[in-house]
């Protein structure tokens, strides 16, 4: 059964700050949804709400019809929804293999036999091209390698819906091309669904089947990549009112 994640009319207030105000979106297994918006528009907060790191003030998040918005974060991972950190947080005193292995032991897989978990971790590391660093301490990785490890860890949990917070940021054009190709390949092979928060427009527009645009915590547009980039409300949000008027 393909899993369906539904976010309906979710709000999150931090004191007087209304970070998310009534956003709804749906992601199915196998489907990539882009989530874009200007800085501070509430994208990361929305991902945190789905991942259970923050609890919504109002609204519901369901997985296959079951409310998950009050669940602790680790339980949500156990049900196949896993998130990357915007700033990678590897377990620094562990090797790359151990980093991914704990995800295999505890995520959706719950592979409690460590030997099998370590094997699976090796396989996942090979997928993201870190096989040669598998037994290196994760503290020795470069920033970009840490991002790949972060991604490997999410894959290691066996998640069916991935929440990816800016995994393509800071890449050179060639690296970006390679990363997009890798992501597409993995997504086709494993058939996971994903919500991709990204500033790198090219990545979002290439990868996403659907794109959701939020501004000041509200959804201002949703559609295919092409529809969204031509939406006047979106152009206004990104470039200001003047630019929106100037666009024919």
């Amino acid at each position: 059964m393909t899993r369906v994640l539904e976010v309906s009319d979710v709000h999150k207030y931090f004191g007087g700050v209304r970070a998310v105000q009534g956003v709804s979106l749906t992601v199915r297994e196998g489907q990539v949804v882009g989530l874009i918006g200007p800085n501070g528009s509430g994208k990361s907060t929305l991902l945190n709400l789905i991942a259970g790191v923050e609890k919504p003030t109002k609204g519901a998040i369901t997985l296959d019809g079951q409310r998950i918005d009050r669940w602790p974060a680790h339980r949500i991972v156990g049900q196949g929804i896993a998130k990357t950190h915007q700033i990678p947080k590897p377990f620094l005193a562990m090797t790359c293999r151990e980093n991914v292995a704990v995800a295999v032991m505890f995520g959706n897989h719950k592979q409690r036999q460590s030997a099998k978990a370590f094997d699976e971790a090796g396989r996942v590391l090979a997928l993201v091209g870190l096989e040669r660093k598998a037994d290196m301490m994760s503290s020795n990785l470069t920033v970009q390698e840490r991002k790949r490890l972060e991604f490997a860890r999410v894959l290691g949990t066996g998640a069916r819906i991935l929440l990816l917070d800016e995994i393509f940021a800071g890449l050179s054009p060639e690296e970006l091309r390679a990363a997009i190709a890798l992501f597409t390949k993995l997504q086709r092979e494993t058939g996971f669904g994903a919500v991709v928060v990204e500033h790198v427009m090219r990545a979002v527009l290439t990868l996403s089947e659907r794109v959701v645009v939020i501004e000041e915590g509200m959804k201002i547009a949703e559609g295919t990549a092409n529809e969204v980039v031509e939406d006047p409300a979106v152009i206004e949000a990104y470039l200001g009112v003047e630019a929106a008027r100037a666009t024919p």
Partner: protein
Amino acid sequence: MADAALFVTDLALGLLLGCVFAVIAHGLNLIWGVAKVVNVAHGEFIMLGAYGAYFFNVWFGFNPLLSVPIDAAIGLGVGVIFYFFFLFRELRGKESMGPQSEMVTLVATFGLALVLINLAQALWTGNNVGIPWSPGVVQIGSVQLPLGGLYVAITSVAIIGLSHVFLSKTYLGNAIRAYSQDIPATQLVGINPTSTAAIGTALGFCITMAGGALLTVWLPTGIYPAMGNLYAPISFVIVVLGGPGKMWGSLVGGLTLGVIIDVGQLFVGGSIALATAIGFLILIPVLLFRPEGILR
């Protein structure tokens, strides 16, 4: 020639004693690493472990080695209770311990230490007791070693080795290691932080109390309510010597301190108190030149 033999004997005794020191320090190191709490009442839990072994001897005639698994099991339970009473409310939902929580737990465990010492004094009087157990000696070359000390040293190394295997080879152990490094990241790989922290803390107490039982072999009349005042600092020194958070650090630190104390006696006229002071003095150059501990 006689001096050389004495030196070798003390060196061997120091190594045997160091193994036991390593266990009590290992317990502290685990609690420190997992719960991020300096357990000021550490010495009192060693004391409880020692009294445990004493009473199992009085009631059932168990020797200290037989008491080790029983003390360890009690330690697990005590650790879980300790976690939920003293740490859970401070750690719940936090990414790390803030200065305020550190203060709270420091004061709380200090209070706990006083309560435990006084309770022990009220229940068991302040008199020294001990466990009469001497399985004999073994002659290796020119060196005579107490068999009790040898058995205890082997048990000690086994306990540290087993905990090492548990932490690196099992899923619970890996969760504990992950938790000790980064609490928010553990949740995002699906680890329940609360149960992991409770299990990790329990493991620390389990090892600490088992260490208390092992220590009694070296204390023919040295079990008394305030004995923790000596063994808590010894544990702290060993953790710092070996390097906090390092799995083999406790063993290296313990052996070092054991040798310093036993061999040191030879140079200060046989005074254990002075030799222990030397052991603590060693801490200063270590902190100055290798603050990360002896191990790399």
